[in-house]
Every structure is written in structure tokens, then in C-alpha cells.
């Protein structure tokens, strides 16, 4: 009789940027079933917004929902509050918001590309991509004053302008990325090792993506042309005629595998460069903030009554913030945040089933989960109920060995 094992991966694992546990039921090397266990880092952020913070303090709290997506969360949040309170931000601010959001997308996708290369044991590419990523981080720092939490957003505009003097520097960095784009494309799409590990692995079919409510590059790689920037008129994106990127631009047929997710993210880097350039060209003049006096703004927010929903396209997919304001109340009456990984996680059982344990790191990383890192997995023998610890290094080693093995087989 065959023995099935349960392998819990996580809650701590480097392929995951935040803690999460995957309970894998395996039969030999094959994954039979997967259960996703979340909640290890639930920080009660919505509770704080509804009980402790005023709406302006919440911007900075929203920024700390996630270190990588620290633009899209305040972006969605302020749009929700502006809608609830009936505030219209100045046009120039809308363009600045988009520029910052697209810079975030470039750095996030490059970060992901590095992690993905690391997961399959392609360390040289990991170093290369993360070195290249530093350029955009430097640009973000010089434009916003900070590498990570940028504090650019304010209800009714942005806190800092992007001036003409900064344009040449931004263009220079974008030109740099354009100059190396062909090289990146060759490395990720034509390399034999990456093709081997990514093609036909972790497949999410279009219908499953729709049923399981997948968003962002995960959905687009499965052929669902869903992108908030394209679909809904928000911020300066409404002016820019964005088109959602699906992998058939390069491959003609959509498989919905890890390779397709690489294509989507890679092409989105290029798309982001184009969006920033257009924003620089078309940026309207004028003020960047509608009410610079915080006390006055807070006072009007306290009197405001209404509800709003803000949706923004984060690097990982749609972020939605729902805000309800009550007159006379200092905090928000209701605040609900939904990050893209929340819905993308529901696809994990489907894309892991039938795969191999050695594919778990790359397949799981392929949805770019916004959760933290695999330090260990516990292997439970269901027969003897004996537990043995499998460290992240061992699991990672399995994944790296598979790459080597396949390479050697090909070389023979």
C-alpha cells in the first residue's frame, strides 16, 4: 500500500515573502492535495483604522500593509477616502501618483524575477537582476526621498512634486532599462534552464483563474485580460489607454504556466517604462495638493459622510480598499483591505496539484505571493506519526538539484 505524507511548508519560507503554511499531501514525489493556512501575520490593521487612527494617520498605516506594495495600498486607500468625502485631487497629482506606482511595479517585478531565478538555483541571474534593480531603487529614493515607505500620498493629492529638474534623471534611468531589456528578455525567455523549469509547470487554466478570482499577472498569464489600469478609469491611467498584457503577445498560445507568468511580468516592466515616459510628457501643470493644511483637511473629513471603494492595480494584482466615513467620527467607520495575494492564494491548491515537491518553491513563487520566507517544513509520516524537520535549505536544494539533473540530462 502506498503511504501518503503530509508536508507542511512554512509558515516561514524564503519563497514566501511573508509567513504562510502550505500543507502538502504527497504520494511519493507527487502532490495530491494542498491546504493553505494563513493568518500568521494578521496584525489587525483594519481594526486600528476603525478604532485608533484618524484617516490621515491611516495613509501611513496603509503604506505599511506591505513593504513591497507600499504605494498601491495608500493609493487605493486615498481613492476610497476621496470618493467617500467627495474630494477631487488635482490633475498633476494624478500623474505623479501613476509615475510612483509604475516605479513600484518595475522594482517589484525585478525583485520577483530575482527571487524566481534563485528558486530554481540560477544564482547568477538572481545577482544580475537584483543589481539591475538597484537603479530603480536609487531613482525612487531620489524622487521620493525614501527607498521603501515613500509617504508620497495624501488625501487630495500628493505630498511632493516631481519637478522638471528631476525629469532628466528619471529619463536616464528609464533609458538604462530600455537598453538592457533585450538582454533580460533573452535571459528569462530563451534560457534553456529556465524554460525547462517553467514550461508546463504550475498550470492555472483560464476557467480556474476566473472561478478562483485570480487577479494580476497570475490571471493575465492564464489569459484573463484583467487589469484595473485598463478596465476602470482611475487616476491618470484613464488618460493613457493601457492594454492588459497577456502572454500570447509572445507565445501565441496561452498555457497559464510559470513561463507565461514570467512573460507577463517581463513585458509589464517595459509597459511601466512607457507609462512613466508618457506621464512625463503629458504631465499637466498646477498644484499637487488640494488642502495643504492637515488640521483643516482632518476637520472636513470628520464632517464627511459616505462610502467609497478604491481599486488600484498593484504589481501582484488588484488591491481594493473600502472605506465608510461617518459624520462626527474621528476614525473610519469601516475599513476593509483586500490585497491581491488574498485571492491568488485560492489558486495555489489547483496549480500545485499533480506537481512535484521540487517544483513547490518556483510554482509557489510564481504567483508572487506577498507573504514572507520557507525556513523549514515538517515531514509527517502518517503511518508512524513521526515528524522530521525539512529545512528550507533542503527543500531549496531539492529544487536546485532538479535543475542540475535536468541540465545534465539535456547535455548528454
Amino acid at each position, binding site marked *: 500500500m502506498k503511504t501518503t505524507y503530509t508536508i507542511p511548508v512554512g509558515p516561514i519560507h524564503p519563497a514566501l515573502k511573508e509567513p504562510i503554511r502550505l500543507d502538502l499531501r504527497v504520494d511519493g514525489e507527487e502532490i495530491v492535495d494542498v491546504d493553505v493556512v*494563513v*493568518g500568521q501575520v*494578521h496584525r*489587525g490593521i*483594519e*481594526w486600528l483604522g*476603525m*478604532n*485608533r487612527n484618524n484617516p490621515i494617520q491611516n495613509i501611513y498605516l496603509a503604506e505599511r500593509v506591505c513593504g513591497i506594495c507600499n504605494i498601491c495600498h495608500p493609493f487605493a486607500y486615498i481613492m476610497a477616502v476621496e*470618493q467617500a468625502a467627495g474630494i*477631487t485631487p488635482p*490633475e498633476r497629482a*494624478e*500623474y505623479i501618483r501613476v509615475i510612483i506606482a509604475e516605479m513600484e511595479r518595475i522594482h517589484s517585478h525585478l525583485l520577483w524575477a530575482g527571487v524566481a531565478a534563485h528558486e530554481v538555483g540560477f544564482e547568477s541571474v538572481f545577482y544580475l537582476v537584483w543589481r539591475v534593480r538597484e537603479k530603480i531603487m536609487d531613482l525612487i529614493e531620489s524622487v521620493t526621498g525614501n527607498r521603501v515607505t515613500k509617504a508620497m500620498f495624501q488625501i487630495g493629492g500628493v505630498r511632493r512634486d516631481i519637478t522638471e529638474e528631476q525629469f532628466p534623471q528619471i529619463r536616464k534611468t528609464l533609458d538604462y532599462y530600455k537598453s538592457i531589456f533585450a538582454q533580460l528578455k533573452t535571459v528569462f525567455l530563451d534560457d534553456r534552464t529556465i524554460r525547462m523549469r517553467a514550461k508546463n509547470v504550475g498550470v492555472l487554466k483560464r476557467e480556474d483563474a*476566473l*472561478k*478562483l*478570482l*485570480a*487577479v494580476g499577472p497570475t490571471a493575465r498569464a492564464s489569459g*484573463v*485580460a*484583467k487589469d*484595473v489600469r*485598463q*478596465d*476602470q*478609469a*482611475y*487616476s*491618470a491611467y*484613464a*488618460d493613457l*489607454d*493601457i*492594454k*492588459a498584457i497577456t502572454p500570447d503577445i509572445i507565445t501565441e498560445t496561452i498555457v497559464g504556466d510559470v513561463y507565461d507568468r514570467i512573460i507577463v511580468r517581463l513585458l509589464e516592466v517595459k509597459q511601466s517604462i512607457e507609462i512613466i515616459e508618457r506621464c512625463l510628457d*503629458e504631465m*499637466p501643470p498646477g498644484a499637487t495638493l488640494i488642502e495643504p493644511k492637515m488640521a483643516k483637511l482632518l476637520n472636513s473629513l470628520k464632517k464627511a459622510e459616505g*462610502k467609497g*471603494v478604491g*481599486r488600484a492595480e498593484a504589481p501582484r494584482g*488588484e488591491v*481594493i480598499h*473600502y472605506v*465608510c466615513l461617518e459624520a462626527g*467620527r*474621528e*476614525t473610519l*467607520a*469601516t475599513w*476593509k483591505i*483586500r490585497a491581491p495575494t*488574498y*485571492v491568488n*492564494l*485560492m489558486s495555489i491548491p489547483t496549480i500545485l496539484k499533480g506537481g512535484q515537491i521540487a517544483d513547490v518553491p518556483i510554482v509557489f513563487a510564481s504567483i508572487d505571493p506577498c507573504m514572507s520566507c520557507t525556513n523549514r517544513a515538517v515531514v509527517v509520516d502518517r503511518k508512524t506519526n513521526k515528524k522530521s524537520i525539512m529545512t528550507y535549505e533542503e527543500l531549496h536544494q531539492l529544487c536546485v538539484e532538479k535543475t542540475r539533473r535536468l541540465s545534465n540530462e539535456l547535455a548528454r
Partner: protein
Amino acid sequence: MEILSPEEIVESFKAALGSSFIDSKIYQREVAVKKNLFQAIWIYVKRDAFRQAVELIARLQEYPHLSIISSSDLGDRIGLIYHFTIYYGQHLKELSLGLCLSLPKNDLKIPTITDLIPGAIFTERETQEMMGVEVVGIPDDRRLFLPDDFPEGVYPWRKDETGPYDLLRVLPGHSCHSDSFASCHSEPFASCHSEGEKRPKNLAQDKLSEESHTAQDRLREETQDPWEKK
């Protein structure tokens, strides 16, 4: 697929739901330089027509996208909003559609929609544990975010006596009763600690509330010590 305008969508709901249709709001705003329209619809329905309303949405859009269920404590009722998006995948055609319901607190039940939208499972599980709304027929009723040892009968998003006030970690120099928290919460705070207040009959929680003061005092002492030593 034919794309209806927000007004036509509202009309179709009115016609199909009859007296179970309560109200609707259409929100429109011009965005950025080209003044394209951002549009959102809010539709208020009675609970008995909830499933029918979701089926209607599924007719407007094959595989409607359910972003999230948000819930608010409205005093003696709980408000639920199912945030859908329809007409996605087309340039500037997407609509945010919020399906709003309110349930009385003595009968917090809502049917599941996981048979229509399998991906609704996470948010239904979250609504169940955070707001205490029972999702009838949910295929997986385990908790999602809350740990297994979290007391039963405590719902973190509630603003009444079932809120998580006993579980708060109060920082040194603050108290649960102080104004450092939102003023509108002074009442629930006071009531949750007043004597003779009726608490949900739950052993784990009764025990917790009895111990909460001493536990919090102890915590305060512990956290204060290093400061005093300095």
C-alpha cells in the same frame, strides 16, 4: 455580451427583485485630464433576495469577480457589502457593483455563494470569524486568519460587547477607558467592563474577562519595569 449602463443595471434589478429591492446609488466621477468616468453602483437588497441578486449579477457577467465582502457593525444590525466587479477585461468598461444588505444581530445568517463563485470561500470564512455572521452552507467553516486558540464568541470587527476589547494589549500609561482610543468607543469600553453586563454565555470568554484585568495589570507591570529601571 451586451454592456448595460449603470441606470439599466439598476432598472433590471428593480424589475427582477420587486419589493425586495430597497435602494440604489450610482456614483460617477470624472478622472484626470480626459475626464473619463469612474463609475460605481451600490444596490441595497433584502436578505431574501440576496441569492437571486447574485444570480442576476452572474447573468450580467459570466464569472463575476467578487473582490471582497466588507462588513460593518451598525448598532443593532450588521451591514454586509459584497463588492463585485463586472465587465472587466475591456477598456474603461468595468463597473464596481456593491451589493449591500443588512442583517439583524439576533439572526445573523446569510447563504453561501461558493456554489456560484468558488473563490468566495476565503472572504466568507473571514466574515464568519471576524464579524460573527453565519454563512449557511459554507463548504469549509474553519477559521481563516484567527488562531485556533482565539476565544469563541469574540468578533474582532464588532463594536458591541462581543468586540475584542478584553484581548487588547494596553500600553503602559494608557488604559482601556482612556480617550486615546476613538471617543465613539467609550461606551462599549465602559459597558464591557461594567458589572452585571450580560456577556455571551461562553466559558472561555467568561474566564478571559475575569482574568483580563489581572492579566493586563501584569502585562503593564512587566512592560513598565524596564523603563523604571532606566
